[in-house]
C-alpha cells in the first residue's frame, strides 16, 4: 500500500502568543516549530500500516525551506520519502494550498504510480481551515472522510471510524484510492530513535516551488482575543491551603451537595 501524508509546519506557541509589530504574523523569533498533533498521528498511522502490510510512505509539506525540519521529523520515525513544495513563507489559503498539493500528487503519481491512501490532519493547528483534505479529494475524484480515529485498510477498501456528533461512533467504508483526515488519538505516536534521526538527516528531499496565487481568502491582520486575564486569588501554599479549598468548593456548591 502506497501512502502519502501531508503536514504543515507551525510555531510551537506555549503559554502566550506574541505578534510581530505589524500584526500580520506570530513573532516566532523565540519559538520552536512543530506540526499539529493530528498530523503527527497521521505520520505514525502511515508508518504502522506499511510496517504491517508493506508498501511505501511519503510525506509532503507546502511551506518555507525550513519546513525541511518537519519532513525530517517524519522520516525519523520511518517515512521513506519527502517532498517539499517550497514557498517564500507567506500564508497560502486553503484553495491555493490544495491546488499546489493536487499538482504535486498528479506529478508523483504519473512518475511512481498511485497513492492508495492520502492522509491529512483533520485541521491545521494554526489556520484551522478544515478543508484542504476535502479539496484535494474532490480535485482527484476520490472519496474522503474527516475526523477519523481508527483506520483499518483491507483489500481495495478501508474501514474508517469517527466519533458521532451525539456520542458513540460511526463507521465508513471507502474504496481505495481514498483520502482520510485523521485526529489525534487514532494512535500514540512513537518517539524517533537516534538511528532514525541520523538516517533522516541524510535523506534526499524532493523540492519544487509552486507559484503563489490567492484562492480568495486573504489574511489582513492578526489580533489576540480580548480575554480578561484574571488575578488568581491564592488560597494558600501546599497542605495549609486545604481548609480554604474545602471552603471554596462548598461555597460554589460542588462539595457537600
Amino acid at each position, binding site marked *: 500500500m502506497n501512502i502519502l501524508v501531508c503536514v504543515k509546519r507551525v510555531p510551537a*506557541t*506555549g*503559554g*502566550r*502568543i506574541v505578534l510581530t509589530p505589524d500584526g500580520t504574523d506570530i513573532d516566532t523569533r523565540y519559538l520552536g516549530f512543530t506540526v*499539529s*498533533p493530528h498530523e503527527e498521528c497521521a505520520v505514525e498511522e502511515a508508518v504502522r500500516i506499511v510496517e504491517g502490510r508493506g508498501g511505501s510512505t511519503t510525506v509532503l509539506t507546502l511551506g518555507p525551506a525550513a519546513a525541511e525540519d518537519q519532513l525530517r521529523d517524519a522520516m525519523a520515525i520511518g517515512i521513506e520519502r519527502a517532498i517539499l513544495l517550497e514557498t517564500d513563507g507567506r500564508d497560502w*489559503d*486553503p484553495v491555493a494550498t490544495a491546488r499546489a498539493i493536487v499538482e504535486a500528487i498528479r506529478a508523483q503519481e504519473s512518475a511512481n504510480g498511485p497513492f492508495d491512501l492520502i492522509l491529512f490532519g483533520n*485541521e491545521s*493547528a494554526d489556520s*484551522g*481551515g*478544515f*478543508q484542504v483534505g*476535502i*479539496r484535494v*479529494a*474532490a480535485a482527484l475524484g476520490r472519496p*474522503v*472522510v474527516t475526523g477519523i480515529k481508527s483506520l483499518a485498510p483491507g483489500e481495495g477498501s478501508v474501514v474508517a471510524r469517527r466519533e458521532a456528533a*451525539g*456520542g*458513540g*461512533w*460511526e*463507521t465508513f*467504508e471507502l*474504496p481505495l484510492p481514498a483520502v482520510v483526515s485523521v485526529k*489525534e*488519538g487514532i494512535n*500514540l*505516536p512513537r518517539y524517533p530513535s537516534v538511528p532514525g534521526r541520523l538516517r533522516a538527516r541524510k535523506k534526499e528531499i524532493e523540492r519544487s516551488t509552486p507559484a503563489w496565487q*490567492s484562492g*480568495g*481568502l*486573504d489574511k*489582513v*491582520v*492578526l489580533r*489576540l*482575543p480580548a*480575554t480578561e*486575564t*484574571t488575578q*488568581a*486569588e*491564592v*488560597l*494558600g*501554599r*501546599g497542605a495549609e491551603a*486545604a481548609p480554604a*479549598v*474545602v471552603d471554596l*468548593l462548598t461555597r*460554589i*456548591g*460542588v*462539595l457537600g451537595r
Partner: protein
Amino acid sequence: MSGPVIALVTSAGGGPDRASLEALTVARQIAAATGSPVEAIVVAERSSAGGAAASLAGLGVARAIVVEDDRLTPDHPDGWAAAVAQVAETRATSAIVGPGTERGNDLLARVAARLDLPMAANCLTVEPGATWAISRQRWAGSLIEDCRLTARIKVLTIAPNTVAAGAPDGGAAPAVESVPVTLTDADLAVHVTGREAPERGKISLTDAKVVVGGGRGVGSGEGFAELEELASLLGGAVGGSRVVTSAGWRPHADQIGQTGLRIAPDVYIACGISGAIQHIVGCKAAKHIVAINTDAEAPIMGVADYAVIGDQIRRRSPVRA
C-alpha cells in the same frame, strides 16, 4: 437586491442544534445587510423535513428548502454537498452559512470544493461589502484573523459558542419548498455503514460539573490515583493535558484542549498544568478555574480564579486532608 442567503441547519435530537441556530443568527444579519431573504436547508431525512421546518418558526427564515430525494439521509456527506451546491447555484445565492462544528465544516468544505469556491471556517464576524471583511478563529480561538473573502458565493461557517442564538419572535413557520436535485451514485458512495452507541455509566468529561485535570506536574500515571479520588469525592471526572496523554499516563480520550475535548464544568481543578494556549482553549469555558502548581508565575495563573501554590505530588487531596 441579491439572491438568498442559505443557512445550513444540522440537527440533534429532533431539532436544530445550537451551533446551527447561532449560524442562522449570522445568516440573518448578512441577509439584513444585503437586503436578501434567508432560506434554510435542513440536513434531515425527507420524512422529517416538515417538522424540521416548523422548528424554525419565528427565526426569520423565509423558506425551508426540502431536497426531493428519498435516498438522501444525514449520513451521506457528499449527497448533501451535491444537493446544497445545486440549490445554491440555481438560486443565485449570495452566501451559504453553516455551523462551525465537525459536521458543518466537513459538509460546507465539500460544497465549496465542488463549486470551486473559497470557504472561511469558524468565523466570528462577517461584514458584507465589495469584498467581505471577516474575522475568524485561528489556533482554535487563541488568535483572531481579520481577512477578506472574495468569491461569487461566500461559504462561511460560524465558530460555535461565539454568537448568541436569536430567540424566536413568534413569527410563522417558514414556507416549505420542495426542490428537485440530481444525485449520482458517486454522490451517495460515501455514507455511514455502521454505528455504535455511546458507552453508558461513565460520567463524560464534557458533561461533568467538576473536572480534575492533571498535567506533567502529576509526575506519573500512578499519580493520577489521587486525582481520581478527588474527582469521585466531588462527583466529577478526570482529564489531562497533552503531555499526560502523549506519555501514556492517560488515554487520549481524557485530553482537554485544542486537539482534545472542550469542557465547560462548574469547576476545573488544574493540577500541575502550565496553561499552554492549546490547553486553555479546552477549559476556558469553566465557570471557576482552580490551579494547583509549584510555579506561582505559570501562565495558568492568568486564567485561574483561585490558586494553590504547591507540590501536586506530595500533596494529599485537599478535601481529605
